[in-house]
């Protein structure tokens, strides 16, 4: 009886093409993009604001920094790991960078912070006016966290979940200690432009007034977009066109087999965690620039839900061995559209988070279904 129930029922000849089409759709690189477009088109008649130029510009501006962070998570998940420390890295590097490059430091706010008189003074940070050096210092700090994470995972065989959870707590607490939880403002304009600056803006409509209201001018190309797209293209090439990329996929698919095949598994794991932290640092630049302040608590709360959610929805496998930058781009687009549409429906934050959680669960189930489909086809 049991054997009969577990035995797969052979599909009828008529059902086979349908199943094949469904399987093809599920396994397609473009599946999430089609899903995103379908979701958008279904909601458009109900929520016309969704398609307005202002909302689309807003949607994209929310997508760029999330994409940057999710790209790093994609690499970690592709090797079968997870990086829970990305939010803490964002808090630490945004605070550190802001302290170094700030043009002024208010003593009434920062005088009790350990970094006061060390990294930041009343007339600004020690690297004030040297933006590139400040960015480099941020990247170094981020890379250091990734190096520690990667080393512990690769050389001590500790679970990535545990290592990065500890990093999340300790690095987050360290960031708060640095400024005693104060935010650091007075960032140079050149830094703020990285998060808020526009390169190309558009106005759609007739020119009836000599001065077009600012509200009707929409950003099209921003510095944040430029950074995110450049990074996405670079990481796409890294994963798809280089030996390093193939090794990342091999480690995720089967670590033991990769080792036997001569892949430097430990080095790959360390590099992937460093890459993840570097992506989080670039995300820190974009987030802190748009908020015009370094914040030790940036990246806290449900931020990690957004990053992991977008990556999983994109299709990167939770089991490792499968991951594409393009998938993450689509995942981020879907996730940002989802958040935006739920906001436009005037749902409460709690309902929005519940829906997001449900969608991520659905994406995880889809990942299981895809993995089974692939096994069945092998």
């Amino acid at each position, binding site marked *: 009886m049991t054997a009969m129930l577990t035995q797969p029922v052979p599909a009828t000849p008529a059902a086979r093409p349908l199943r094949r089409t469904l399987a093809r759709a599920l396994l397609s690189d473009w599946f999430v993009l089609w899903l995103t477009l379908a979701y958008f088109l279904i909601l458009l008649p109900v929520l016309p604001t969704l398609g307005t130029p*202002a*909302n689309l*510009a807003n949607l994209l*501006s929310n997508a760029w920094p999330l994409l940057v962070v999710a790209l790093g998570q994609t690499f970690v998940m592709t090797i079968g790991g997870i990086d829970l420390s990305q939010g803490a890295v964002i808090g630490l590097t945004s605070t550190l960078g802001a302290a170094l490059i700030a043009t002024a430091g208010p003593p009434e*706010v920062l005088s009790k912070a350990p970094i006061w008189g060390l990294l930041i003074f009343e007339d600004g940070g020690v690297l004030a006016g040297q933006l590139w050096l400040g960015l480099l210092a941020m990247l170094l700090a981020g890379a250091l966290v990734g190096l520690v994470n990667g080393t512990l995972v690769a050389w001590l065989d500790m679970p990535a979940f545990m290592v990065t959870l500890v990093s999340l707590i300790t690095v987050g607490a360290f960031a708060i200690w640095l400024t005693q*939880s104060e935010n650091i*403002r007075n960032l140079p304009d050149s830094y703020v432009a990285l998060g808020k600056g526009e390169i190309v803006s558009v106005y759609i409509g007739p020119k009836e007034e000599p001065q077009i209201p600012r*509200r009707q001018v929409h950003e099209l190309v921003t510095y944040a977009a430029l950074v995110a797209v450049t990074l996405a293209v670079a990481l796409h090439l890294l994963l798809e066109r280089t030996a390093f990329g193939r090794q990342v996929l091999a480690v995720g698919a089967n670590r033991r087999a990769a080792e036997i095949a001569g892949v430097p598994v430990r080095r790959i794991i360390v590099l992937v965690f460093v890459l993840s932290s570097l992506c989080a640092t670039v995300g820190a630049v974009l987030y802190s620039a748009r908020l015009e*302040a370094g914040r030790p608590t940036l990246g806290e*709360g449900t931020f990690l839900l957004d990053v992991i959610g977008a990556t999983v929805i994109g299709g990167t496998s939770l089991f490792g061995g499968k991951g594409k930058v393009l998938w993450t781009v689509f995942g981020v687009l879907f996730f940002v559209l989802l958040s935006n549409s739920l906001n436009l429906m005037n749902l409460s934050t709690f309902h929005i988070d519940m829906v997001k959680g449900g969608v991520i669960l659905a994406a995880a189930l889809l990942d299981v279904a895809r993995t089974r489909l692939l096994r069945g086809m092998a």
Partner: protein
Amino acid sequence: MRSTFLSALGATAFATLLGTGAQAATICFAFQDLETEFWVAGHKAITTTLTEAGHTVIERNANEDANRQLEQVNDCIAQGVDGIIIIPQDGESAVTIVQTAQDNDVPIAVFNRPPSDLSKGIVVVADNATIAEQAVDFVAQEAMARITDRPIQPLIIVGDLGDPNAVGRKDGFYAALQKYGDKFATPIEVASEWDAATALANLEAAVTANPNIDLIFTSSDFLFPTIRSVLEPRGKWVPRDQEGHVLMAGLDGDATACQLIKDGFVDATGVQDLYFEAESAMNAILAAIEAGETQPNQVIEDPGFALTSANLGEREMDMWGCVLLSEGFLNN
């Protein structure tokens, strides 16, 4: 007269005022969270009043995430709202959000938690330093009357110093004590970051290290239950007419503080006039919308006052928390 007005109409007291003249508008009300009684009462006053006056209110709760709040405000702007009322996460993010709204020609009012830069937007703010000074001055004088043979040991629970309200309250505390020179020992500072759990951990440590604290000032009334949970096991949570009473003052004027003053555990609290502040924010934003003014800049100050065990009888119903208390708020 004023107390009758408030208790009779509660949070919807000025609905009719706002309903006259102004056309129905869509207002985005973006708040950082509703953790304290003050924010809950402020939220209720604003949403109920605007809705009853025929306006549409789009609510956004950022759940204490400044980045999320910025994105929510951008969503509101994209939705084409006529105006924004915001309770920001902190003074720094408020500056950015006000700038964003004004860049998009949407009038914005900041309710109670002011931006670090007061020059932009409609800012409704309490005179925190003066209110705190009044409340602390009362307990300082009480302390000097009771303790004459040694320096008095004060303790202040400081808020998140990224919030100008917290800075003002701290300044008011020190201004009050400075007047009395060496009668007071150096105050012990306990950080709360506006978080009860953080305050609890830090206060436990401070009281363990310094058991002889004579006076406590909390920068917000919502921390009185936290103070109680630290003092009660040590036998220091006693009313003012009993031996071992620790003099206590706070700021906000919430229902819990009102009850504790009546019960004798708390001696004074600085009162922010919540209804005045809510009414001012709503009136100013609706006036700006009506006038087609997209970047109104105005600072509206709430002078506030201190409710003490001495003036409780006369001024009780001037405090919003006592009004709520009389309506059974704490029982609900």
